[in-house]
């Protein structure tokens, strides 16, 4: 059979132009398949890495996914707020180790502003057990200081010391701005690969201060409060949007969750971030699975190209098969020749596709990292990816079976003489 493999390679080399195109089709489809696989694995991991170390997220009663979306991903808005007294009450529960308040609703040039307290920086965890790291400066200490996420700083080209004005609401249209009380940037965060990169963090007191006189949703006419005046007021917030809760023991999670869900004074909802993230991924994962299905179909199309090339060559090669038969080739060796050609072509396509993938990853990695916060490692193929490649090879051999079977039967029927 080794002599047949040598013939197969020489035969392929003889048809190198059409073979090269087929090879490219297979290689590209393999690159696409593996690329999609890498991206979706990375997306899923990145997604699951968004938040960790938080046992419960609490907000006004709504849907769990909705609460996760607005509190963690800053997508959409809360339907209702939490009363500050509820926050204090929950934070004081014996099983609660810490509770970080979150106040949303303002923005700066399209980036969401998160009002919170300094403990946020010590309790927020992402990608396993990573804590927030400052690239420049540090956390806020006074009401009118702000900390920028990595993306905010890099795309707006801000650095520490920069003055920024917050806008009321979150949108891209011209919003009413809190021009009377500018904030200045005291810290810039390292990249986290989470929505935090696109957030501006300020103190709850700052949020309260800029809304003095805005109780009706717009500034009271004629009222002009300066930051100095605001500083002398009581800046304890009346409401917050959500809170992140850490417990002393995980065992108490469901008990505390039930306590919050059954809260007497106002309707609240507590969710386990991990479980709700999974729920959310099940929703958005449809697109990812579709993408995978499409890339799998591209492989099938590539193999259809291979089949076409093999079939087209077959008629022209009947003489060749008769010659091989005459020098002693068994019909099974003719079958082996065609299968060998298919195997060699598929294998070369796979190798080329994998090389192309790594080249692409090398080239695109900085872009993916800076634009989408995706980290694609130059890791060797995972067992699952090797399984996919094995599948591609199997499909290739399968598509070689038809021409091989045809060649086998023709060479049996033709014998040494071909009726042309």
């Amino acid at each position, binding site marked *: 059979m080794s002599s047949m493999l040598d013939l197969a390679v020489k035969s392929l080399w003889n048809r190198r132009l059409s073979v090269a195109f087929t090879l490219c089709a297979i290689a590209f489809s393999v690159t696409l398949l593996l690329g999609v696989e890498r991206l979706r694995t990375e997306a899923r991991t990145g997604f699951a890495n968004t938040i960790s170390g938080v046992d419960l997220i609490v907000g006004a009663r709504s849907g769990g996914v909705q609460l996760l979306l607005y509190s963690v991903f800053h997508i959409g808005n809360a339907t209702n707020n939490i009363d500050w007294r509820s926050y204090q009450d929950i934070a004081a529960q014996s099983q609660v180790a810490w509770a970080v308040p979150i106040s949303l609703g303002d923005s700066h040039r399209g980036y969401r502003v998160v009002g919170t307290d300094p403990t946020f920086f010590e309790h927020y965890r992402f990608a396993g057990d990573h804590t927030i790291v400052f690239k420049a400066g540090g956390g806020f200490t006074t009401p009118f200081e702000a900390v920028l996420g990595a993306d905010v700083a890099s795309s707006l080209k801000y650095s520490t010391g920069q003055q920024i004005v917050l806008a009321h609401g979150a949108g891209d249209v011209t919003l009413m701005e809190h021009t009377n009380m500018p904030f200045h940037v005291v810290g810039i965060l390292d990249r986290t690969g989470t929505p935090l990169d696109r957030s501006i963090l300020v103190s709850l007191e700052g949020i309260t201060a800029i809304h003095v006189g805005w109780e009706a949703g717009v500034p009271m006419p004629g009222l002009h409060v300066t930051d100095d005046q605001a500083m002398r007021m009581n800046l304890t917030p009346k409401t917050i949007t959500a809170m992140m809760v850490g417990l002393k023991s995980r065992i108490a999670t469901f008990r505390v969750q039930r306590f919050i869900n059954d809260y007497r004074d106002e309707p609240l909802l507590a969710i386990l971030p991990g479980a709700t993230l999974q729920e959310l991924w099940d929703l958005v994962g449809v697109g990812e699975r579709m993408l995978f299905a499409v890339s799998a179909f591209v492989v099938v199309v590539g193999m259809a190209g291979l089949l076409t090339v093999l079939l087209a060559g077959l008629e022209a090669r009947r*003489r060749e098969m*008769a010659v091989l*038969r005459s*020098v*002693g080739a068994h019909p099974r060796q003719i079958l082996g020749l065609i299968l060998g050609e298919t195997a060699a072509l598929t294998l070369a396509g796979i190798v080329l596709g994998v090389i192309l993938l790594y080249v692409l990853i090398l080239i695109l990695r900085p872009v993916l990292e800076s634009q989408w916060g995706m980290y694609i490692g130059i890791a060797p193929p995972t067992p699952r990816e090797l399984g996919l490649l094995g599948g591609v090879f199997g499909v290739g051999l399968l598509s070689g079976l038809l021409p091989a079977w045809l060649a086998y039967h023709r060479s049996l029927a033709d*014998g040494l003489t071909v009726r042309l």
Partner: protein
Amino acid sequence: MNQAVIDLQDVEFAWTPAGIAVLSIDHLSIGKGERVFLKGPSGSGKSTLLNLLGGVTVPRRGTVTVLGQDLGALSASTRDRFRAEHVGYIFQLFNLVSYLSVLDNVLLPLRFSQMRRERVRQRGGPRAEAGRLITRLGLGAELLDRPATELSVGQQQRVAAARALIGGPELVVADEPTSALDADTRALFIRLLMEECASQGATLVFVSHDAALEPLFDRGIALNDINRAGRSPHVVNA
């Protein structure tokens, strides 16, 4: 006549077990070293006979004995190996594998035959032996590394003859090898082929419909005379 290289007894062949016989030969015997002209026009059962001699097909009745071996008694793959070891073929046209060099084409049978590989090794190795053969057949040894497709039809037929002869098979079967050649080249080709067969002690069965070539051979056999099925007007096999 000395020991028979080919011996057909009461052979009948049909494409289907119950179909009309396309070949029916009571007796045909060709001796060792004989150079036989087998005259067979289209429809005389020529292709069938060639397939039977090579063990590509087996008759539904009778025995085909080549070099003392009853081919019908062998399995299909053993017959293929038998053909590889003992029989060299030359066809009418398109003898060469287009993607191989002249050398690789000449050496093609060695891929399938241990015995011929061994003989070639003893004669100085594949390249030397291939070069010797094509030189004997009137081609320059410098053609060895050229792609087969660059050769003229006449050159291709000589390469095919070298392939049939390499490794010294006992039987060489040529099926209309000269029909694409002009008259001068034709006679030269046959003379060179015969010389080389003689030097290797090979038996030559030369099939052609061109009766003008018959005097060049030891013996002439008209397939129509020995094939009773061949006289049937219903036979369409070429």
